[in-house]
């Protein structure tokens, strides 16, 4: 069916699909709270209050949105090249550790360049960790899904050893590195009442815009999408598919590495083992919800960030529902959005409208 066949109603309904799917997913997830003897409406109110109730709450929501933008973009660029990056978790761990190591090793750098050095280190570390599965796919033909999963575990293992042994912070029992130099710290915006949201959030917005520009306005971006859409045609057109794949995975890794900016430079001031509540896997969901569109990812990440932050007050504000509900809600949203075949009726309604009109 080509575009002109569709009525305006059909197109409108189709663009409504993600929104309807999100609402349905949230409704199903919230219905679960009946099992806990809670009113879903009350739970919804708590979620809303906790996510947006004060400028601090909104700031915390944006704080959790920031890494999800980066991992969402990471998954999206790989997807545009026909690759599935579920290794953002490992890539962001390396990025964060690299930023923390650089920030600790060069405490006397001037404040103008210090953060940039740490950001570069994070991008490079993430890019390397992304490029290896890219290379394995391009040159050895081994599937990136399996490899990126394996690389998540390998990254977690190596970094936790590094942090416990050679890079340990001698002043604490916690598995974390020594603090980074003052010059590396990024001050949060004042408007959010001490919520650790600062330049990292702006960087995420810029990254999304740049990725959109890259994909839609550059020839390399066009080649990348060509590889993802039709590998065979891309090869015929003389595009070096292996090179594009390695490149896409390196950029994906670099984007995931940028999670370090909000976490290490903007919040903790060090690398903490296990700081990420699965931002990498959530990035898969964010990218799916946004259909891999860089600007859409901003909104999808905001939704997931809000669910994550919103659920944090459930422990205190309800009798029986804990913050774990965030995972249930996110899962229901993902399933609802991903069930392509379940939304055919929307398209049917759309084309019926065409006939009547």
């Amino acid at each position, binding site marked *: 069916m080509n575009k002109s066949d569709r009525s305006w109603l059909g197109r409108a309904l189709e663009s409504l699909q993600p929104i309807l799917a999100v609402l349905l997913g949230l409704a199903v997830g919230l219905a*679960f709270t009946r*099992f*806990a*003897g809670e009113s879903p409406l009350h739970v919804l109110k708590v979620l809303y209050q906790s996510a947006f109730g004060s400028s601090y709450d909104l700031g915390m929501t944006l704080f959790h949105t920031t890494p999800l933008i980066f991992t969402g973009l990471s998954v999206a660029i790989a997807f545009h090249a026909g690759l*599935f990056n*579920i290794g953002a978790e490992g890539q962001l761990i390396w990025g964060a550790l690299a930023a923390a190591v650089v920030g600790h090793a060069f405490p006397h750098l001037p404040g103008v360049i210090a953060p940039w050095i740490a950001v570069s280190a994070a991008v490079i570390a993430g890019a390397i960790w992304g490029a290896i599965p890219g290379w*394995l796919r391009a040159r*050895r*033909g*081994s*599937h990136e*899904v*399996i*490899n990126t*999963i*394996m*690389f998540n*575990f*390998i990254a977690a*293992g*190596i970094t*936790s*050893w590094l942090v*416990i*042994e050679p890079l340990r912070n001698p002043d604490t029992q916690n598995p974390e590195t020594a603090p980074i130099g003052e010059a590396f710290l990024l001050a949060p915006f004042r408007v959010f009442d001490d919520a650790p949201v600062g330049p990292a959030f702006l960087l995420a917005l810029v990254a999304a815009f740049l990725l959109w520009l890259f994909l839609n306005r550059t020839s390399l971006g066009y080649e990348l999408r060509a590889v993802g859409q039709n590998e065979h045609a891309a090869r015929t057109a003389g595009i070096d598919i292996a090179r594009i794949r390695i490149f896409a995975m390196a950029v994906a890794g670099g984007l995931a590495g940028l999670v370090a900016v909000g976490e290490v430079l903007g919040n903790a001031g060090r690398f903490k083992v296990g700081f990420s509540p699965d931002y990498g*896997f959530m990035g*898969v*969901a964010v990218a*799916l919800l946004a259909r891999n569109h860089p600007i859409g990812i901003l909104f999808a990440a905001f939704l997931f960030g809000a669910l994550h932050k919103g659920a944090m007050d459930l422990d205190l504000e309800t009798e*029986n*529902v*804990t913050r*774990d*509900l*965030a*995972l*249930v*809600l*996110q*899962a*229901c949203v*993902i*399933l609802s959005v*991903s*069930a*392509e*075949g*379940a939304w055919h009726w929307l398209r049917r309604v759309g084309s019926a409208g065409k006939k009547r009109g």
Partner: protein
Amino acid sequence: MDEQNWYQSAPFQLAASTFRLAAPLVFAAMGGLLSERAGVINIALEGFMLMGAFAAAVGANHFADPWMGALIAGGVGAAFASIYAVFVIQYRANQIVAGTAMNFLAAGLTPFFCKILFDVSGSTPTLPIAVRFGSEPIWGAWILLALLAWLWRSTSVGLWIRFAGEHPQALDAAGIQVNRIRWASVAASGVLAGLAGATLSVCLSSSFSRSMTAGRGFMALAAVIFGKWRPVPTALACLLFGFLDAVQMRLQGVQIGGVGVPVQFIQILPYIATVIVLAGFIGKSRAPRSLGLPFEKV
């Protein structure tokens, strides 16, 4: 040393814990094998296992019988896997995305129901020894392997499963419903992953605790790939991974020449080995041809 019995010797102890730690991997990997060979990617194994571990602990606790725990774990695993099957087979959801969602769902639902049933979200009550399994699951894992290897080689069901993953069109032409085979395989993988979870919570430990699978579902998936999607090599891979796990547990906190043994490097060996095998550096590991592709009748 003289006073020790043979079964107290270090090598025997190590072998025993190898088999204990391999058992949940064997169950889960056989489940993963069924689903993947039928053509459905199963990164949700981790979630299936977590649901099974919780259900088993609840069942064993309620009925004061580990067998009831295992039964309920299998049932819950099948039901949970059927949800996955609805989405990926019926609604053609992307299998990796839906698998990720199922893992989220299990990670969220288990503490959610734990809190409702026991008023704490962290873990279920400790099961007394009488309500736990002894070595039954450890033998059971290998009996299961024998059954599956037989099913694979000598029955038409085994053949159908393999065709569903390799040449679904051929299977369809032979008059067998591809999606029915896939559905059954995914549900069976849920049963087996559920039993894997039961082995964790009712045999290797004495309760369910939050995210207790700790990546074992993914490790089972790695074993499937390391074993090149075949039953016996996959089980041997589980045994190898179980051995590495037993070794690293033994070396935790051990000092050699004043330096702690970096057990993390032993922990990641299974994943490194899987990457190497998948890359074809040691023999070639090839996925079923139609893995991940939804089947639609032409």
